[in-house]
């Protein structure tokens, strides 16, 4: 980090502002805000070196509540603004806060280009599968046949799978967490912050006004252990209330298996977040959790992490190389050009 990175003893409090938080009571955003405020002081970065850029939507109010540098910009463009900021100021810790509409719909184009360029920024996508700020229309991540204000007969759009999209755009850090699991969210955010490159974190966030309970199946005691799968590096993919189920790979096909007579933990898929091909399969475990019969649980955690040069570093390097080989630019030489003539 920057030269001013003296060790400072910061606490979550230092990151709160005097602005009244105006999300609806009970909104999942409160938890995400609290976890970010807890994680940031642990990173060893001076407070003034954080810049949080958001777009438009409920989630994008985020910067107002963070006592860092912040910009609440325009719909879908936080990613592009953050790209320019990071290119100009590689020394800053840049965070993007966005929602499913902001990042997948109006800003979809910038999302994929940010990922392929791999700017070293943290990209938090609060996914509540609904448009909250505009009061309840379906979003690009809403499930099919969803009844909303704009789809009284049910939506006919096929939804995005955000992690598969991020994988397709060659993201270098791909993770999923949720508002209702503070510890998991803190761990995931810490990992994201430490990753060098664009860290894409999808955060399941409950909109208790327009889409209440949409992720309940992953958070309620009765169902969460059977429907969620918590990824841990080098550990087998085991889930279920009694840790009685697992995922094994049959060739390229993942399968849900019962542990016991036929299969043991040794037969299971061992999670390796550096395995590009396994990650492709893992992000595709996207079954409808309400489906009856055998289906895949929804994975949470870090799906994939790899290292690739960051755009801002390559950009700075190119400048350095040119200056090394040609010398620093001389304005008078530039203006004069190669061919001149004198008029007396």
């Amino acid at each position, binding site marked *: 980090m*920057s030269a*001013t990175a003296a060790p400072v003893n910061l606490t979550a409090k230092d990151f709160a*502002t005097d*602005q009244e938080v105006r999300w609806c009571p009970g909104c999942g955003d409160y938890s995400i805000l609290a976890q970010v405020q807890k994680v940031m002081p642990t990173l060893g970065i*001076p*407070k*003034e*070196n*954080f*810049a949080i*850029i958001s777009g*438009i939507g409920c989630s994008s109010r985020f*910067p*107002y509540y*963070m*006592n*860092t*540098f*912040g*910009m*609440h*910009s*325009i719909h879908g*463009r936080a990613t*592009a*603004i*953050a*790209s*320019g*900021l*990071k*290119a*100009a*100021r590689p*020394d*800053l810790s840049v965070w993007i806060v966005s929602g499913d509409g902001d990042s997948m719909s109006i800003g979809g*184009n*910038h999302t994929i*280009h940010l990922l392929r360029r791999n700017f070293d920024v943290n990209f938090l996508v609060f996914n509540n599968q609904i448009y909250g700020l505009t009061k309840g229309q379906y979003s690009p991540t809403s499930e099919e046949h969803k009844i909303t204000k704009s789809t009284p007969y049910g939506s006919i759009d096929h939804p995005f799978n955000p992690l598969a999209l991020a994988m397709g755009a060659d993201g270098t850090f791909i993770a999923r967490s949720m508002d209702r699991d503070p510890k998991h969210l803190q761990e995931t955010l810490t990992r994201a912050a430490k990753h060098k490159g664009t860290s894409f974190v999808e955060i399941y966030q409950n909109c208790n006004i327009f889409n209440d309970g949409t992720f309940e199946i992953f958070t309620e005691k009765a169902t969460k252990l059977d429907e969620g799968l918590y990824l841990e590096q080098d550990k087998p993919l085991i889930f279920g209330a009694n840790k009685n189920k697992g995922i094994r790979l049959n060739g390229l096909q993942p399968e849900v298996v019962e542990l016991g007579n036929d299969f043991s933990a040794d037969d299971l898929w061992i999670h390796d977040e550096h395995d590009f091909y396994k990650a492709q399969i893992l992000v595709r475990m996207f079954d409808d959790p309400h489906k009856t019969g055998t289906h895949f649980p929804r994975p949470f955690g870090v799906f994939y992490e790899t290292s690739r040069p960051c755009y801002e570093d390559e*950009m700075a390097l*190119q*400048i350095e190389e*040119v*200056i090394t080989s*040609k*010398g*620093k*630019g001389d*304005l*008078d030489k*530039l*203006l*004069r*050009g190669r*061919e*001149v*003539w*004198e*008029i*007396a």
Partner: protein
Amino acid sequence: MTRTEQTLQDVVIKFAGDSGDGMQLTGQQFTNNTALLGIDLATFPDFPAEIRAPIGTLPGVSGFQLHFSSNKVYTPGDIADVLVAMNAAALKVNLKSIKPGGKIIVNIDGFDAKNLRLANYPEGVNPLEDGSLDNFEVIKIDVTRLTREALKDFTDLGTKERDRAKNMFVLGFIYWMYDRTLDTTIAFLKEKFGKKESILQSNIKVLQAGYNYGDTTETFTTRYKVEKAKLPAGTYRSIMGNQALAYGLIAASQKSGLPLFLGSYPITPASDILHELSKHKAFGVKTFQAEDEIAAISSSIGASYGGALGVTTTSGPGMALKTEAMGLAVMLEIPLVIVDIQRGGPSTGLPTKTEQSDLMQAYYGRNGECPMPIIASATPSDCFDVAYEACRIAVQHMTPVILLSDGYIANGAEPWRFPKSADLKPIEVKFAAAQQNTDSKFQPYLRDEKLVRPWAIPGTAGLEHRIGGLEKQDITGNVSYDPDNHQHMVKTRQEKVDKIADYIPLQQLDSGAETGDLLVIGWGSTYGAIKSAVLELQQQGYSVSHAHLRYVRPFPKNLGNIIKNFKQVLVPEINNGQLIKILRDQFLVDAKGYNKIMGIPITKTELITEIKRILQQK
């Protein structure tokens, strides 16, 4: 055989051929050669939007017009003294823009049955044979055959490769005709083809063959010479508009100490600025080819927010896409330069043709009350000064600035008495300083006497604050829905832009008396045509003056008073009347428009006719 040499004051020559004939390169080579002799000049490249329209057809014709003179030159010329036509289509397209009695140099190979048919000449009609060119002096050269002949020993080159050197034959011949030497082009060829020996040698050979053809063929008895122009003393170079604009941005970066960041998406005719700036990394310039126009401006806003000199470059359709982000920059009150190289519109319109298309868009084209300063360049070299000034206004007044240029200036060239770095006035910039005492909260929208707020960049301790597109409370910058505050902020943002008038020069008359019958007001690329028309009319005794606006928003403070001193006002524009609407609105003046919307510049001749018509009307 006796040869005579005739001295001319003024020549307009147009090179025209198929897009693949290399006419732009031929024109540029002749331009450089001319410029280095100290002859004044102006150029006008005119090419199709398609990279290669079908060969031999009318839409495929590419032209390059050059006006050179021992007098001061203001335009590329209304009408050509000499036309080089590489094929029938090139002749047909340009026939109406040659002076009666002018010379037409044709490549007769381009007038075979196939080429005549492609140029839509009726069956059996050949303009070289039917007497239709009797009013011109036609010089027929079988360029293709002579080129092949010259290259008969270059056995390693195919016919296609040999024929590609045709333009060098023409160029060599023109060099002979105007009594030039070949060295500038030979040097150019060496640089371009240095590693491809036989291509290099073949091009030089054909260039010399063209020259020798003029020298040895007895049909040509006269060579022409144009003397050095009497320009102000100094060192000159040749410069094109987009290049000058890029240099202006680099100079502003150097003289302000702010690193230059360009976020851009390729679009005709603005892409050359991106190309140019991307070459100059030695100045620390960061160029970012974004995924679209919106990302281009958004990334520049991000860079500016971080303390860089943020610039984005585009043309009309891209301007439209950037609109919302411009509004954000106005709300954030941060510096940004938006360069619009205008072209024919609406929609995709005429990408390679010129038009003063976007003044209304620049002035009014955003949601809400969203004032932004606008500044316009008048000539290719003026782009340097205007780019420098746009950066100055942006960083000193904490505002996005729109710079309007157009395709005609962007691609046109002229001699430039370039400045010395030391003579450029430094651009002073101050970032808000760190605050150690955290009890006093930083006020991001506290304004100075110019109504300008501090530029507080991330990484500065104690200045943590939030900005955004929602309405701000003045001083604190907190989100505010208070009705009185909104009215206050709308008025304040307007006043901030209006106040820039206190920090720009007063409007000068370009020529003419301070009172009179007619004031011609122009902006942008009509400069040369208006200037030369008005000067000529003044010599004929007409009471006419010329004011040319660099600052379009806000106007210089004295513009209203200047206007009041004239009985009539004429506003020529290459659009359907845009500046005129603003002038009428602000000064309640009954100005008249002269509007040409053909994708080509206004000519001196038509303007003289129009001004005389107006003055005789009363």
